[in-house]
């Protein structure tokens, strides 16, 4: 125990001396939360929209204004003919074009049907999707209203009432903040561990440790113990910042969340240890950690829904600890999920953890002498 604590104490001392790393560990959560919380909003609004109005009536002008009123589209002026419309899209001045046919108002007043065309710039699918759905909703709503007026019925035969639970305003921050806990833990835990061991190897102090009577598990546990503490500090920082700045509360049990986070932190530390056995220098350890971060951010479901990914990517993401932790933390923090609800994810995380610990301790043993 003395030996283990000596290592942990030394590690903390070194961390305290290394102002840059320390600052990075505190700044990283804050910077990330500002970046992801404020800057990223998947709910795209105010898409520049142009109108090719071939009808030029009060009704056609009203339709264009109604589209703008949905909030998804901003009118950026009219075009006179199809050539101008394609020029506007090509140049990027507009991403959406609303085409209102000639005799639009007349056909509607006569009880005929009219077709309005929406041209969208598919090179940016995410933003125009929201314009398409806004326009679709608007037209459907109008069609129902006209139909009711023509038939004299009092209400539509079928209607949808959708209720959004857990995040009624559909704010992106609610989804992002708990996810950030996982992303930040992955980044710092893997990198810190990998570099801390690589540094000892690089400076030759690892050899001095190995000739001492310290046991391998004491060395490993002593080294990563301070990082577990740091991990929890970071997690707390993000949750508090999320609460204060973005009003994202933790609905479920905090003790449960902190308890389950241990498995995730441990998995990342084991991975960092594994990287450290592959790296000869701190620089290599750092590069490996960065290389590992990217698929985590892209595939884990942090930024993009996993449901939309090809099967191969989905399978790949199954082996990332972050994928499962995201489900756990979003479940607990946002939906108030309990232990029983999360059993499946916990089991998977446990399997990954066991595999990583085995792998890294095997590698670490071979690599020391």
């Amino acid at each position, binding site marked *: 125990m*003395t030996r283990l*604590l*000596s290592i942990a104490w*030394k590690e903390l001392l070194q961390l305290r001396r290394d102002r840059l790393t320390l600052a990075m560990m505190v700044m990283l959560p804050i910077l990330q939360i500002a970046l992801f919380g404020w800057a990223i909003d998947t709910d795209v609004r105010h898409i520049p929209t142009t109108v090719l109005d071939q009808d030029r009536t009060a009704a056609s002008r009203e339709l264009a204004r109604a589209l703008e009123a949905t909030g998804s589209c901003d009118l950026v002026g009219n075009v006179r003919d199809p050539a101008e419309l394609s020029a506007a899209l090509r140049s990027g001045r507009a991403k959406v074009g609303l085409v209102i046919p000639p005799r639009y108002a007349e056909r509607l007043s006569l009880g005929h049907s009219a077709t309005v065309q929406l041209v969208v710039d598919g090179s940016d699918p995410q933003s125009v999707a929201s314009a398409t759905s806004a326009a679709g909703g608007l037209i459907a709503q109008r069609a129902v209203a006209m139909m009711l007026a023509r038939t004299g019925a009092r209400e539509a035969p079928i209607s949808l009432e959708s209720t959004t639970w857990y995040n009624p305003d559909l704010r992106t921050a609610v989804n992002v903040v708990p996810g950030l806990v996982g992303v930040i833990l992955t980044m710092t835990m893997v990198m810190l561990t990998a570099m801390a061991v690589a540094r000892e190897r690089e400076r*030759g*102090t690892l*050899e*001095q*440790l190995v000739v001492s*009577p310290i046991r391998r598990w004491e060395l490993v546990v002593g080294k990563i113990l301070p990082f577990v503490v740091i991990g929890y500090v970071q997690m707390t920082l993000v949750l508090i910042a999320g609460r204060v700045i973005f009003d994202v509360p933790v609905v479920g049990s905090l003790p449960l969340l902190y308890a389950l986070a241990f498995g995730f932190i441990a998995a990342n530390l084991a991975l960092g240890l594994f990287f450290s056995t592959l790296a000869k220098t701190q620089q290599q350890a750092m590069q490996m950690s960065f290389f590992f971060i990217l698929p985590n951010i892209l595939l884990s479901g942090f930024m993009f829904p996993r449901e939309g990914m090809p099967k191969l990517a989905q399978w790949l993401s199954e082996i990332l600890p972050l994928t499962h932790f995201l489900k756990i933390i979003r479940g607990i923090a946002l939906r108030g999920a309990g232990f029983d609800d999360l059993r499946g994810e916990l089991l998977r995380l446990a399997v990954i953890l066991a595999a990583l610990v085995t792998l890294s301790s095997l590698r670490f043993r071979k690599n020391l002498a």
Partner: protein
Amino acid sequence: MAAELVVETQGLGRTFGQLVAVRDVSLSVRRGEIFGILGPNGAGKSTTIRMLCGLLTPSSGRGSVAGFDIATEPERIKTRIGYMTQRFSLYEDLTVRENLLFYAGLYGLSGARRRARVAEVIARNGLVDRSEQLAGTLSGGWKQRVALACAMLHEPPLVFLDEPTAGVDPVSRRAFWEEIHRIATEGTTVIVTTHYMDEAERCHRLAFVFRGSVLDVGTPAEIMERRGLRVAEVECRERAVLDSLRADARVEEVAPFGSRLRVTTRREHDPAALVRAAMAAAGLRGDDPLEVRANLEDAFVSMVRDDARGA
């Protein structure tokens, strides 16, 4: 007392795949001895030390250190030895005191005992003024002192020093060797590897290691005596003299040292006479060659040459 063996090995060998790092090393080191392991880089010195420390398992042979078997009880050995590497292994971002406290804890000292022992070591090694200084800002000589203090914290009966004076200035080296002798006088056994000949001459006994095998073991005087070499030096810059001496089978070695030639022969020949003859043949009449004492380097070079011829 003199017969108490701290280290004893027989036919120790270690291979790494195809590479034979240590072929056959048999050593016995007595308590309180300063035992040198001398050899060129790559001779197998470090591998031998690492086996003795319990870091590497031998591929062949057997050995015991401080009474424990190196193959089966490496963990017991680790508590009984101190170890100082050529890179001093200090944490540069910790102070001298923190380094000492850390290593004390690593060897299981705790609480008041740990603090007392560290304070004692600081006082004893003249580190009081530097105890709060970051280890990274120390000069090479001071780093070396602190590293030795770290290795001696738990008062081991045996300490290994792996090229402890690499990159240290001559004055610090001299002070360091004084410290080594002091440690040995107090009963600690010191095993030191080096490739500096002047350092080797300061050891009580030496093992010459070359290509993974021990070529000779003994006191520096014994080793030199066994080689039976005679050496003469002369002021001479003539290439012809050097070449003719090198061609002479009776001459072991001719080496230029500045403006002098150093000529080595076996005991049965007279190097001064051979030099005189060679100079006369070249039509030169310089200073008279002077016979000088053979040193360890002469012995070492001659042994390595013999080994190469025999192989």
